[in-house]
């Protein structure tokens, strides 16, 4: 079904088919970008729109190798990286800078949920955990999306989840100390 829609867009520039493809794939792309931008919905949705616009323009380069959604994730991640480079995402950059600062944790209200703890990770670590655990991408697919070696994917996943765990434990101990 999806392959036929892609074919229609590639062959006839069919807007209706592309709209259907977007309906099927918009939710994971927007969720991913919202998490990457630390829930800045306006920026995330703008990036999602740019992702789909770019996907439409370059759809002929999609050869059907791998899932269409993985291809969209790759574009979305590139959009996020380039927007961060242009420093249009001030809030996110500020938060990331603070996340690297050890004192930031003391100022944060300790929240134990995994989603809130994502703020403490850098964007690569956030992206890799989200792609693997939230969107079920395999290691090989993540390597293609993020354009990094397979070994790095495995290392980053392990490191990120250990980091999350240590942040959760720190928050827990801080709460206990406060009592």
């Amino acid at each position: 079904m999806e392959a036929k829609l892609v074919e229609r867009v590639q062959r006839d520039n069919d807007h209706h088919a592309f709209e259907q493809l977007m309906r099927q794939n918009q939710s994971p792309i927007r969720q991913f970008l919202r998490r990457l931008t630390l829930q800045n919905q306006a920026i995330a949705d703008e990036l999602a729109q740019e992702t789909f616009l770019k996907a439409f323009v370059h759809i002929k380069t999609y050869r059907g190798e791998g899932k269409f959604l993985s291809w969209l994730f790759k574009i979305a991640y590139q959009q996020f990286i380039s927007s961060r480079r242009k420093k249009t995402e001030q809030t996110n950059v500020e938060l990331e800078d603070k996340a690297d600062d050890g004192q930031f944790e003391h100022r944060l209200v300790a929240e134990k949920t995994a989603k809130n703890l994502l703020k403490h990770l850098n964007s690569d670590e956030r992206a890799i955990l989200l792609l693997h655990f939230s969107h079920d991408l395999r290691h090989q697919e993540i390597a293609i999306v993020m354009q990094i070696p397979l070994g790095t994917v495995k290392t980053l996943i392990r490191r990120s989840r250990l980091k999350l765990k240590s942040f959760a434990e720190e928050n827990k101990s801080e709460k206990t100390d406060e009592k």
Partner: protein
Amino acid sequence: MKNDFLDDDWLKEALSDEYIHDDDFSFSVVKKIQLNERQSKRNFYTILAVMIGVISVLFIPDLLMIFSQGPTSLSLLGPVNEQEMPMKFMGLGVIFLSFILIWSFEDFDLI
């Protein structure tokens, strides 16, 4: 389920988000695609119109003169022929018509 960041199933559940239902999103992206296509077409039409305009100004008066009075009437180096003025107006007319033609292509999606 145990709260453990090293447990795959727990982490999957902890990081999952609610499905986003939003038909307006895809609709607005399609509108942007259509707008982009229209703008890129407009650039093409503008370049085409400019090219036709330049060719018309440069050659149409001379061509008309050649057809109406023969090749000897064309003076390449001499002063401007008085009869050339109506030809210039005809050239401008052709430019105007070419613009109308090109914009009608766009409005009726003929290309």
